[in-house]
C-alpha cells in the first residue's frame, strides 16, 4: 500500500469512527427463527433494545404450558441473551478503542 493509499484508508476509518459515535446511542439485538426448507420468512422470536442512557427493552416469546401459564422458551431465551451479552461486550470494547483513537 503506497502512502496516498494509507492516507485514504485512514480517512475511511476516521469517517467510520466519527459515524460510529452518532450510531452508538441504541443497540438492537434480534433473534429470529425459520423452518429450514420451507419458503416462509423468518419470524421474530426475541428482540432487545438497549439505549445509551441505560433503558432497555426485551421482547421474548412465550407459550402456554399444560397448566395454562405462560412460559418463556428457554432455548431461544438462552441463545438470545448470549447474543445480547456478546453484542454488549463487543460494543463496549469497540467504544474504548474508538475513544483511544479520538482522545489518545
Amino acid at each position, binding site marked *: 500500500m503506497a*502512502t496516498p493509499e494509507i492516507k485514504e*484508508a485512514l480517512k475511511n476509518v476516521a469517517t467510520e469512527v466519527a459515524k460510529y459515535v452518532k450510531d452508538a446511542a441504541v443497540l438492537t439485538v*434480534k433473534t429470529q427463527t425459520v*423452518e*429450514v426448507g420451507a419458503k416462509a420468512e423468518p419470524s421474530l422470536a426475541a428482540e432487545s433494545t438497549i439505549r445509551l442512557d441505560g433503558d432497555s427493552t426485551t421482547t421474548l416469546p412465550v407459550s402456554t404450558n399444560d397448566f395454562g401459564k405462560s412460559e418463556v422458551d428457554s432455548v431461544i431465551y438462552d*441463545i438470545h441473551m448470549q*447474543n445480547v451479552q456478546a453484542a454488549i461486550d463487543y460494543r463496549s470494547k469497540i467504544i474504548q478503542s474508538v475513544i483511544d*483513537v479520538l482522545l*489518545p
Partner: protein
Amino acid sequence: METDFAAFESEMESALTRLDDLFPEPSSESDESAVSFDVAAYTQVDETSPEGQLLALIHEAETPEAEKPVSFGISETVSGGLDKAREEFGAFMERINRDVLNFAHVESGTADSPVAATRINWTGDALTVLSAGATPDDLRDHSETLRHELMSRNLRLRMFSTVTIAAGKISLALTTPGSAILALPMAYQYVSQLSKQWQAFQSLNQN
C-alpha cells in the same frame, strides 16, 4: 491458543510504556529541539529487539535517498525495512477497513442443513436467524464461533488504536519533512513485533 482480551490489552499498554521509555519527553528546562532523533543516543539498544528495529526504520526514513546503499535497482535499498513495514501496515489497514465497512457474518451448519446465522455490524447491532431444528449444542457452538469472530475484530481495533497512539510518539522523532506518515507503518511493525514476542513467551511458559 485462545487470546485473552485482558492480556492483549496489557500487552498494548506495555508497548506504549516501552515507547515512552525509548523516547522520553524532554524536561521543561531542556531545549525543545532535544526531541529530534539522535542515533548516537541509542547505541545501547539491542539491534534485534523491537526497539532496535524501530530505530533502524527511523534511521532509514531520516537518511537522505542519495546516501542510502543501493543493491539491486535504482530505488531498492539493502535493508528495505521501511517498504516491508509499509506493506504490512497496508494489509492491516485493509483488514481494519473491511471490519468497519462490513458486517461480521457467522454461519453454522452446512448448506443443506443450516443451524444458525448471525449478522452483526460494527456498532454491535445483531440479527440472528435460528433454524427450527437446531439443538442446544448446535446453538452453543454457534455462539462460540460468533464470540471468537467478535473477539478478533475487537483485538484488531484495539491494535489499531495502539498503533495510532504509538505513531504519535514516534512522529516526534522524525524530522524529515513529510515523513510523519511513515510513523504509522513503523508503529505497526513495532507493536506487532512486541505482540509476537509475548505470544512466543506465553507458549513457552505453557509447554
